[in-house]
């Protein structure tokens, strides 16, 4: 006590970084805004309706789920907002709003809250929700609107991956179109330039490490280079189609479902890239990123176990034991 007033007597350390969970989530929201704006330009005002639906559904679902489970309210950390935004980016703009709302509910309640809330989800909530919607409402999830057609009349189109995969006879958009997002696809995955800008922002703010995006994108590039027999344009199309950029920067980097240590991050990124390419090249689905990330999410505990770091100064015993065994 000093001057009759008690002192705070807490354990060390007595200083903390100014960063907070909410601050990190806010950075992710900021990184997603350029892509949201691009989506509105490309696909019209309905983008905002879909996004508002997924975000409000996510936040409401989290609030109600926590109440029902008698846990403290967590919507203030903005993680539900981020999940809602990312889920919206994974949907076609024409999706019926009630389906989008169900997707959010599934992501937040089943994948996240039922497993313990933030930090405890077993897979990326938005990815699982997208897959569930794909399996439940296949047609709606495959109804791609042509960019800019919202100005006149909505027209359906094919995605570049479908064209590349030989499913439809249509002309591929030019590489510049791909870079600017002028192509059919999910509302938040087409605009390569804004996704890259958002990714760079997150890396600069140290919210994500460069390792997973570089490993993921790099692996897709290398595999497609081999698959396309050295055709660089082929590689460029693959990198900018589907959800590679959205997935590499914003979904594979989700904290609870990706490894913590650097080396494990690289293995994870490579795994995502490899699976994406295998699905795209050999499976009947045109798009592989969602399933690739989901499968790698499930493998993360095992990757981390195998690649667990040794505490400081631990001497490697294996080599000497091996030599002993050989000598015998």
């Amino acid at each position, binding site marked *: 006590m000093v001057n009759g007033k008690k002192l705070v007597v807490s*354990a*060390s350390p007595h200083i903390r970084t100014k960063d907070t969970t909410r601050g990190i989530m806010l950075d992710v929201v900021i990184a997603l805004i350029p892509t949201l704006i691009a989506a509105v330009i490309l696909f019209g005002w309905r983008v905002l309706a879909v996004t508002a639906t997924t975000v409000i559904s996510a936040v409401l679902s989290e609030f109600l789920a926590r109440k029902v489970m008698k846990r403290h309210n967590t919507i203030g950390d903005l993680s539900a907002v981020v999940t809602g935004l990312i889920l919206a980016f994974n949907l076609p703009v024409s999706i019926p709003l009630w389906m989008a709302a169900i997707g959010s509910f599934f992501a937040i309640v089943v994948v996240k809250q039922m497993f313990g809330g933030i930090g405890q989800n077993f897979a990326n909530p938005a990815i699982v929700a997208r897959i569930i919607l794909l399996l439940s409402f296949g047609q709606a999830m495959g109804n791609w609107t042509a960019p800019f057609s919202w100005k006149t009349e909505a027209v359906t189109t094919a995605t570049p991956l479908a064209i590349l995969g030989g499913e439809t006879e249509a002309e591929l958009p030019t590489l510049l179109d791909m870079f600017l997002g002028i192509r059919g696809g999910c509302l938040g995955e087409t605009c390569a330039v804004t996704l890259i800008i958002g990714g760079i922002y997150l890396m600069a703010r140290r919210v994500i490490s460069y390792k997973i995006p570089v490993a993921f994108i790099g692996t897709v590039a290398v595999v497609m280079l081999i698959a396309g027999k050295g055709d660089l344009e082929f590689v460029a199309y693959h990198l900018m189609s589907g959800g590679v950029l959205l997935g590499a920067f914003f979904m594979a980097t989700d904290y609870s479902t990706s490894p913590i240590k650097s080396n494990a991050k690289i293995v994870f990124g490579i795994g995502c890239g490899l699976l994406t390419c295998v699905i795209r090249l050999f499976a009947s689905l045109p798009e592989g990123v969602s399933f690739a990330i989901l499968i790698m999410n499930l493998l993360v505990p095992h990757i981390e176990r195998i690649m667990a770091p040794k505490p400081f100064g631990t001497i490697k015993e294996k080599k000497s034991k091996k030599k002993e065994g050989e000598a015998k």
Partner: protein
Amino acid sequence: MVKAGIDGVLKAVKKVRGGVKVDHHKNTAEMEVVRIPTPSKVVIPMQQHIGSPCEPVVKVGDEVAVGQLIGDTDKFVSAPIHASVSGKVVAVGDVKLPNGVMSKAVTIESDGEMRLWDGIKPPHVETKEDLIKAVRASGLVGLGGAGFPTHIKLNFPADKNIDTLVINAAECEPYITVDYRECMENSWDILSSVYLLKDLLGFKKVVIAVEDNKPEAFKVLKNIADHKADVDDEVKLMVLESKYPQGAEKMMVQSATGRRVPPGKLPADVGCVVMNVASVAFIARYLKTGKPLVSRSMTVDGSAIAEPKNVRVPVGTNIGEIIDFCGGFKTEPAKIITGGPMMGLAIVGTDLPVLKQNNAILAFSKDDAVLKPETDCIRCGRCAIACPMSLMPTNIVKAAKAKDADTLDQLGVTVCMECGSCAFACPAGKPLVQHMRLAKAILREGGKK
């Protein structure tokens, strides 16, 4: 300009992984150390070091002088304790130390004269054994905060192959500047000690390590390293990146030699001895004067202190008196710490004595004392990235909650030095160091029964 990598100035042999960048707050860096006025009384505990407490060798009513022995023991891991003021012993009894432990203490009422004990004379030191005896008699313990009896650290057996002395001038904790002041004000003592220790203890190499936020100290320390007495160029200055916990013992060993101290072992097991620069300087002073450890320098700072200063205080001085000398509180203090903000101890009040190993008193106002609220772990991994010991605090906390001692052992929780980097870095405000301490206790007790 003195810079790492140029003209014999070393960079870290193996850079420290992890750690956190903290705000330095070295507000008192350019303030010369000032002696406080003689306190009216001192309370000198018999436990101011790691190891066995001393027993008082004086009783109530005895007249004592500065430097006179007042506490000793024949237990090995210990260091004797001496009177820091002259006067009369008015109490020998139990006192509560800042960490809550009860200890015997000798209270001396000062006569204001600071008379030196007439038994003080410079020791005669020619061999290593002489040095060890002298260091023990001086009562020296690690002045960087650990308080380990220095005579034991220096008395390493010949078969340990100790080849390197690392002098720790890093001072990586925020606010504290007394080691820097030691370099700037007592460089001659550091110089004498370096060459003395090198000679008597047979070190092949001496590395003086300092952080790069103290450029003024570089010149001073480089002069020591370049001194003509260093015939074989074995004394070197090393400039390290300013990062907490650069000054931790195992980090120092890694930076200076590239060697990593294995879990459960000491720097001596990899051929190194690490000493705080103030402890090193003290040895030279003691050999010159024979005056044992009875006073030390401290930084007094923090947002609640009116006039932050570097002060020289007799051991056992009341903390409240020291704060008063520094202008008292300018705002209501909400938290007072002895030591630095990363590893220091929060105290319950100012009516406590200063110990040999305390190097700072920091008082914080409410804005700095109240930390952000705790929220759920998001598994961002910043704690694991920050940990200089390559531990995974998230996994340790999980295993501790499950009382799983086997996993805790595997995760290496005993290697944790409680530096606080993990808790500092956590965006969710998790009290990770407390979790680590609990985890260590669970491991000790063997987990689920």
